[in-house]
């Protein structure tokens, strides 16, 4: 799997090869050159309508080792989107061309747009070297000025972004971005920033390479003081709106609705993603800055065709009918797996594995900061939560809901991760009703009402509701139906509150739920998403949202958390500010130790791996890849080196 990776030495070899090729006399090599680019492009070159390959890719293109041998140019890759707001379906195939990129194992970063970098000893200053001669998809050079424009003029502009995206702010100070020379950029942060290189490989870290200065500056008042006519023509009221309409942003549909906008992506928009569209098509970027080990320019595949489905069932039908070449988004549920697998032969496709980066398929978050003091006292008691956990028959849930493809599990990094933490992951996962009853009796919930439910000391029934978004995670709802029965057996009354997702979020923001469930992240990316390990995520750490608000606002809003939480916040901040992975692991182990001791949220079953399908004609797709938002699959497996056989 690591053959797709690339080491520094090979990169320079590749660069040298290209440089050499570029300097040779061109006529006798025309034939060979023709084989190193798509036929449609070499025709254009011969007609003098496109610069030669060497001019297009520059002197230091990224050299990618293809997954499979004997690639050929051509073909259209078909894929499905789901209605509006599925812009990230495009992002996940083509839109992750950051300064760095992930390796296949999701453990470290490799050169992307930047060919190399230096990090200062205190992890505050990051210097990136760009690729000389690299170009935007319209042929204009990509230089340090573009990055400066994107950072200084765009994301630090208070009219465009009222406040800069959080990953650019450290210790309350926004990043400082300077040009060293045309191909060197320096980022300086107010404090140590150990995760910066990784952040640059995630989708939210794409800002430096998002806006082409020569194009997007046309919509920016600093460079164009005559925007009035354009505003009128576009029917918008301010320049920020116009800018977003034309140049997009990382995660909005209009990123894919302007065919004119230059990008650094392997394919560029042909038929845009907009309101009435029934499909989106993209065609190859003739200036794409990556080549394979034989010097052939990527991508191999000519075009992409995204069909827009309103309904997941009809998307599924086209998957099993073999009418899509690569699909994992929207269809990768366990419930779909048997049907997809049955139709493999008839549909002419194969399945590949996507390794869950989630830790748990369903984390139960008791609200230990509940507004009601009685409930807060009950749910805030660790022994009470321990009894709840022992009362769950996880084996039954795994068998019935997850078709046996999982195991009982609390939270924490997955067993394959180097930071796997036995106690955090496995404590209290046995089904032990007797012990659960003993604990509850001892806690004073020993009286029962006529229906055999336990009573609180104040005479109220031990009862609470649990928020779940059924439409989103039907498996969570199924699991809760079983848990409701399990807890009934130990005398606890649970009401499943199946609600719509906006209400779920609104209730969370108001600190209203008694309990809530959500698939627990942090299985493969514990540093990037530690919401289950301490009160980190103001919308995600659902056991104590006011504490997380306190943390995220630097102590200004929310509610002050207890010391064991503050200790974890301190440890995490320390881990986050070092770039040394071993040190990060040492600090995070302490976070996990405390989290295991406090046992704030309950897990049910380890998140099972999911799947994707690839047409049998499509080669180069790895048999297994991570499934994560931070590793936005399948983009880091480099679809530009996928190709079609005959």
């Amino acid at each position, binding site marked *: 799997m690591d053959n797709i990776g690339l080491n520094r030495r090979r990169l320079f070899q590749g660069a040298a090869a290209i440089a050499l090729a570029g300097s040779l006399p061109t006529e006798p090599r025309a034939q060979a050159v023709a084989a190193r680019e798509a036929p449609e492009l070499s025709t254009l070159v011969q007609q003098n309508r496109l610069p030669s390959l060497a001019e297009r890719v520059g002197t230091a293109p990224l050299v990618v080792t293809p997954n499979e041998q004997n690639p050929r140019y051509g073909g259209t890759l078909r894929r499905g989107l789901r*209605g*509006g*707001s599925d812009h*990230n379906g495009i992002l996940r195939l083509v839109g992750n061309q950051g300064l760095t990129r992930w390796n296949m194992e999701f453990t470290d970063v490799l050169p992307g747009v930047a060919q190399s970098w230096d990090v200062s000893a205190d992890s505050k200053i990051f210097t990136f070297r760009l690729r000389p001669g690299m170009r935007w998809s319209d042929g204009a050079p990509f230089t340090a000025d573009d990055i400066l424009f994107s950072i200084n003029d765009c994301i630090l502009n208070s009219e465009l*972004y*009222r*406040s800069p*995206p*959080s*990953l650019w702010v450290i210790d309350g100070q926004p990043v400082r971005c300077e040009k060293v020379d045309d191909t060197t950029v320096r980022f300086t942060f107010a404090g140590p920033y150990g995760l910066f290189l990784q952040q640059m490989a995630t*989708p*939210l870290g794409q800002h430096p390479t998002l806006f082409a200065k020569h194009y997007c500056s046309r919509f920016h008042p600093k460079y164009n003081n005559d925007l009035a006519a354009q505003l009128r023509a576009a*029917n*918008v009221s301010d320049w*920020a*709106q116009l800018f*977003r309409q034309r140049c997009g*942003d990382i*995660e*909005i*549909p*209009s990123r894919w*609705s302007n065919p004119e906008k230059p990008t650094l992506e392997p394919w560029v928009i042909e*038929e845009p993603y*907009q*309101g*009435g569209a*029934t*499909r989106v098509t993209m065609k190859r970027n003739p200036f794409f800055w990556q080549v394979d080990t034989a010097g052939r320019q990527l991508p191999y595949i000519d075009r992409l065709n995204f*069909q*827009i*489905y*309103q*309904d997941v*069932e*009809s998307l599924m*039908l*086209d998957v*099993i*009918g073999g*009418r899509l070449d690569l699909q994992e988004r929207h269809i990768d549920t366990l419930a779909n797996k048997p049907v997809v697998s049955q139709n493999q032969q*008839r549909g002419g496709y194969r399945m590949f594995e996507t390794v869950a980066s*989630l830790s748990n398929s369903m984390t139960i978050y008791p609200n230990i900061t509940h507004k009601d003091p009685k409930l807060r006292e009950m749910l805030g008691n660790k022994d009470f939560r321990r009894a709840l956990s022992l009362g769950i028959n996880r084996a039954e849930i795994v068998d019935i809901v997850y078709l046996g493809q999982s195991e009982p599990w609390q939270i924490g990094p997955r067993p394959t991760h180097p930071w796997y933490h036995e106690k955090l992951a496995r404590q209290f996962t046995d089904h032990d009703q007797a012990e659960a009853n003993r604990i509850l009796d001892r806690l004073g919930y020993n009286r029962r009402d006529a229906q055999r439910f336990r009573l609180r000391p104040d005479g109220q029934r031990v009862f609470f509701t649990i928020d779940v*978004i059924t439409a*989103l995670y039907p498996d969570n709802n199924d699991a809760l139906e079983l848990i409701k029965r399990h807890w009934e057996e130990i005398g606890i009354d649970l009401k499943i509150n199946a609600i*719509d*997702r*906006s*209400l*779920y*979020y*609104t*209730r969370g923001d108001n600190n209203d739920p008694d309990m809530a469930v959500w*698939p627990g*992240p942090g299985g493969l990316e514990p540093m990037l998403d530690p919401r289950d390990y301490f009160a980190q995520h*103001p*919308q995600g750490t659902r056991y104590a949202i006011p504490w997380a608000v306190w943390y*995220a606002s630097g102590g200004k809003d929310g509610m002050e958390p207890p010391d064991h939480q503050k200790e974890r916040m301190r440890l995490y901040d320390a881990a986050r500010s070092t770039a040394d992975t071993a040190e990060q692991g040492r600090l995070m182990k302490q976070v996990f130790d405390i989290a295991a001791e406090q046992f704030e949220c309950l897990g049910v079953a380890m998140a099972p791996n999911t799947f994707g399908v690839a047409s049998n004609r499509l080669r180069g797709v790895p048999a297994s890849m991570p499934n*994560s*938002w931070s590793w936005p699959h399948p983009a880091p497996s480099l679809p530009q080196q996928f190709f079609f056989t005959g």
Partner: protein
Amino acid sequence: MAGFILRRVLWMIPSLLAVSFLAFFLIQLPPGDYVTTYVATLAASNEIVDQRTAAELRDRFGLNQPFIVQYWLWISGILLRGDFGLSFEWQQPVSGLIWERMGLTLLLTTSTLLLTWAIALPIGVLSAVRQYSFADYVFTFIAFLGLAIPSFLLALVLMYVAVVYLGQDVSGLFSEAYQTAPWSLAKVQDLLAHLWVPVTILAVNGTAGLIRVMRANMLDELHRPYVVTARAKGLSEFRLLLKYPVRLAINPLVSTIGWMLPQLISGATIVAVVMSLPIAGPLLLQALMAQDMYLAGAFLLLMCTLTLVGMLLSDILLALIDPRIRFD
């Protein structure tokens, strides 16, 4: 008659204003707003929106302002400048989004309507004239079957059979090659080749009710003295039927035209979602689910306008068909 029409048209103005207010209010009613929904949609794929970005979006779309201010911004744009605003989701003018889909929508719904009538009216008449005959029972049975099967289910089953057993794709209104091609004879043929599937599915669902209405109305009329008189005067049975009882029996159908016009937009939504038809219904549904207020509001306003216009049309048609109806 002219005075009547004028009065009705004038009354439409306050009705529309009231309706626009109600529509806007209803769209706002669910908890959260466009941004909450947007964040939640992304979260569904475990995708995260930066917190600051979310707050900023809310600010930019004016979602922090009080309801009445938001309503005023919207309605004043429409009244003063004919501007329906930008769709939050697509950052495109709402009017463009709507008109883009209206053509095919109109085609699909009118063909469905015509097919429904073409099937239901003759059968309704036949069932009444030959009441309790074998044909009456057979047709009634089939029609009820059609009514009982939800059309989206029929669509899904048809699509599944087509994909798995015939290896054919019956979703959409065009084949791959013609989706964005300019209009040509070949494209029209392609459209017709796809159109009959959804039209049949939708028509099957609509016929049963219509057959029953037609049958009952006819049974009422068939034994009236004027029918006996006409027969006594020697009119052929066929001419007699069409000239008198059918003309009266069709009355209730005409008076429901007012409800059919808004159906043009929202009628076939579920089938359209299942079959990926590029018509207005799914866009409206999506706009409502995303709380994309300007887009959804414009749709609702359009539907209400159509309802009012439809009502007026029914009244005028009724007056033309049935001489017993008077204006006052």
